[in-house]
């Protein structure tokens, strides 16, 4: 019996020992035809890691170029130097610190969670030029048309603090100091955003926010890319998301005036008295009254196609009769009306066409951020977590309503990796976006 059973049992044990573990292995990773040894990130606030209304150290640590550099490291990427701020409250460029989620009491006495300034003191913009050159050349406020202007480093305190020679160094000259083998280039947002955030007010002078001229934009992009690719560097270029995708323009509802029948009657009587016939009020939600030069009496009610911007004082909306009283229509600076939205979206499309064209000319990976932000706006699920472009609760944006939070930046990093993998035949793993923090709750 012994002899008959023994082989049977031994066989069973050997069999189980050898094969009771699942055979799943990581795939080989590779750089493809790109060389990531010296990576430089060129861009604006989105590249710098700006978030919650300020540039601060933790934001820089969670910037998408930092995440990319960590992934690139797996395929031969080298040191990635960041012009770090000191720890602290951060700085928006005019010595205000970042925002955090806190409690604010409204004019109506209601206390609720809202973005408030952090109690930490603002961080002075430290000069870190001595430790340069840097791999992260993200300059908050920079437009594409500023990229090659030496004078710009004198005007922009964020560039001033780390560039080699203020007044002479440009964004691109700083970026080429490390002789990059690979770059990411994401400029252009501020060529429409400043104008949009200001409510598309017609520019008063050359310093006013405006839509960048197409030809200027084109030549600046061309010059920038020529400089960056001069020594054979490869790279990825990202385009401009529509402003309609970001919470800054979509958070305050166009129809935020909620009325009872009685209140509506009172308002109608008031408007009739003044002879304003194009505005009537009904029970329930009504559009805010906004300034529109084309409308009779220069005011009209907002429609679903008008966007009220996030900087509109909310107490004035709630208690100050703003947007309700005939003498207090929402000023042009607080509203992107339908025509302005169209103007901005059309201009964005033109600039994006130029970006696509140059991605092609210089044979770069094109990262379609516009499409990505649209899909975020309509809501997406990432490994079990729902994300949308809703302010605070959407999960992807920081408290300024324009810049992503660390999770949002991680998803942006993944969009870059997708395009780079595709363009250069690389196999670079993506980052786990859920690993990063979202909005922090008190």
């Amino acid at each position, binding site marked *: *019996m012994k002899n008959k059973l023994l082989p049977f049992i031994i066989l069973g*044990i050997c069999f189980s020992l050898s*094969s*009771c573990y*699942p*055979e*799943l*292995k990581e795939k080989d990773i590779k750089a493809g035809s790109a060389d990531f040894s010296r990576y430089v990130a060129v861009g604006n606030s989105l590249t710098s890691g700006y978030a919650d209304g300020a540039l601060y150290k933790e934001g820089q640590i969670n910037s998408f170029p930092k995440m990319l550099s960590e992934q690139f490291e797996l395929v031969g990427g080298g040191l990635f130097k960041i012009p770090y701020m000191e720890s602290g409250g951060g700085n928006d460029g005019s010595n205000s610190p970042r925002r955090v989620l806190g409690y604010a009491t409204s004019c109506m006495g209601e206390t609720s969670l809202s973005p408030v300034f952090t109690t930490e003191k603002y961080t002075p913009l430290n000069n870190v030029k001595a430790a340069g050159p840097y791999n992260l050349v993200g300059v908050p406020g920079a437009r594409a048309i500023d990229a090659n202007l030496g004078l710009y480093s004198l005007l922009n305190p964020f560039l001033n603090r780390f560039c080699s020679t203020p007044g002479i160094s440009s964004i691109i000259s700083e970026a080429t100091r490390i002789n990059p083998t690979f770059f990411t280039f994401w400029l252009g947002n501020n060529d429409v955003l400043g104008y949009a955030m200001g409510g598309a007010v017609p520019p008063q002078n050359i310093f006013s926010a405006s839509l960048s001229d197409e030809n200027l934009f084109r030549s600046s992009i061309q010059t920038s890319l020529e400089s960056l690719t001069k020594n054979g560097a490869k790279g990825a270029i990202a385009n401009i998301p529509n402003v309609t995708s970001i919470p800054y323009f979509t958070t305050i509802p166009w129809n935020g005036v909620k009325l009872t029948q009685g209140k509506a009657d009172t308002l109608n009587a008031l408007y009739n008295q003044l002879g304003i016939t194009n505005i009537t009020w009904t029970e329930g939600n009504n559009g805010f009254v906004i300034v529109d030069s084309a409308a009779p009496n220069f005011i009209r009610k907002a429609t679903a196609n008008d966007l009220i911007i996030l900087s509109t004082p909310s107490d004035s909306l709630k208690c100050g009769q703003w947007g309700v009283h005939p003498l207090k229509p929402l000023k042009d600076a607080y509203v992107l009306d339908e025509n302005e939205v169209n103007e901005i979206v059309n201009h964005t499309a033109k600039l994006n066409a130029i970006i696509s064209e140059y991605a092609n000319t210089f044979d770069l990976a094109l990262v379609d951020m516009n499409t990505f932000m649209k899909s975020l706006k309509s809501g997406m699920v990432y490994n079990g977590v729902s994300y949308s472009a809703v302010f605070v609760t959407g999960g992807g944006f920081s408290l300024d309503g324009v810049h992503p939070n660390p999770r949002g930046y991680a998803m942006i990093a993944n969009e870059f990796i997708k395009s780079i993998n595709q363009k250069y035949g690389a196999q670079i*793993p993506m980052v786990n976006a859920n690993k990063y923090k979202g909005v922090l709750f*008190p």
Partner: protein
Amino acid sequence: MKKYNLLLLVCLFSFTSSFAGGFKLGLQGQKQLGMGHTGVGFAQDAAIIYFNPAGMSFVGSQFCGGVNALFPNTSYFDISTNNVTKATSQVFTPFALYGNIKINKTFNFGMAAYTPFGSGVLYPKEWIGRYILTSIDLQSVYLQPTLSIKLTNNFSIGGGFVYSIGNVNIEKDLPIQSATQDFQAHAKLNGKANGIGYNVGAYLNTKKAAFGIAYHSRVNMEVKDGKANFTNIPASLSANFPSTNTFKSKLPLPSEIAIGASYNLSKRTTAAFDFNYTFWKAFDTLGYDYGVNTTSLSDTKSPRLYENAYSLKAGIQYDATKNTTIRVGGFYDQTPVKDGYVSPELPDNNKMGLTCGATFRIWERCHIDCSLLYENVFKRTQKNLETQLEGTFHTKVIAPGVGITYLFQKRTYKRKRY
């Protein structure tokens, strides 16, 4: 004999792995498991109460019980991050106890307690799917009083009532972070469930062969007063996640039809074959109905859309010596889970199992049964439609088992003349 048992014990403790493959467990009898878990048409011990209540008429008065040490081992390869997660090692001990009493020539009464469904996975901290699931533990025990009636010398029918008790424990992390403390918000759902059902069958015994058919009814497990606990929630959101909340849920344990046959190939050799068809379609949605709903906590309904599935099993046993029987078998189990619906709670796929076993008659009334199951839940690569988790799951299972059979009446083995 002792030597072999020791060997099996070594085997038992040398594997450290995790998780139960699929939430139906095919571990209901040691002898049957040795033969690929066949037994609907092969009344060889009291475990037939589970396999086919009618077969009780042909086993005599006896007690039979066993336990398996289930070592499931699951890995997940995440495509986007190129990362392999190994589920944490766990051991499960599903058991099966059967007692059968021959009341008279016509009636047999039996009682059974067994664990036909169960599952468990524990993923490591901070794994990529932690907002989907960090752990699940699903247990059920069926209690089944059963009667069989011998209508003729060769033919019997039987039926049992099933009362099922169960326990479910599901945990996951919540994607919420605190500004003040570095801790992870977590949700834990825990509930007891119960349900009722039945198990009926018919059995035909001929000189060289036997045939059986059985139907196991669906059992609707209902959690009526589950506890939903939320921990480490930032203070500003505590009202959205009440720390002590309740939930209701339903989990259908599907019905199944089983057909089996056995045939004496020689005096010492018997082969058995089973076919099962499980009506998994019953598991259509998994919903949680919370006692208190808030803006962050609404009732959920997730589609599962399981499909009916079959399994094929075959086994053979050989009386090696007067007091020793050895067995070998295998099975193929079709998955009920469609592409796009495989999730960390049940990383299922078609599976193939190989089994072996032995019985040692240490005393004419007392037998020790051993079995060993090796199961491969094939690799499966897909993207879950609900959570967007995209990757490959692979599970392997090892389950050594041991049991005892005690005969209340001396039973002569007809095929024991060597």
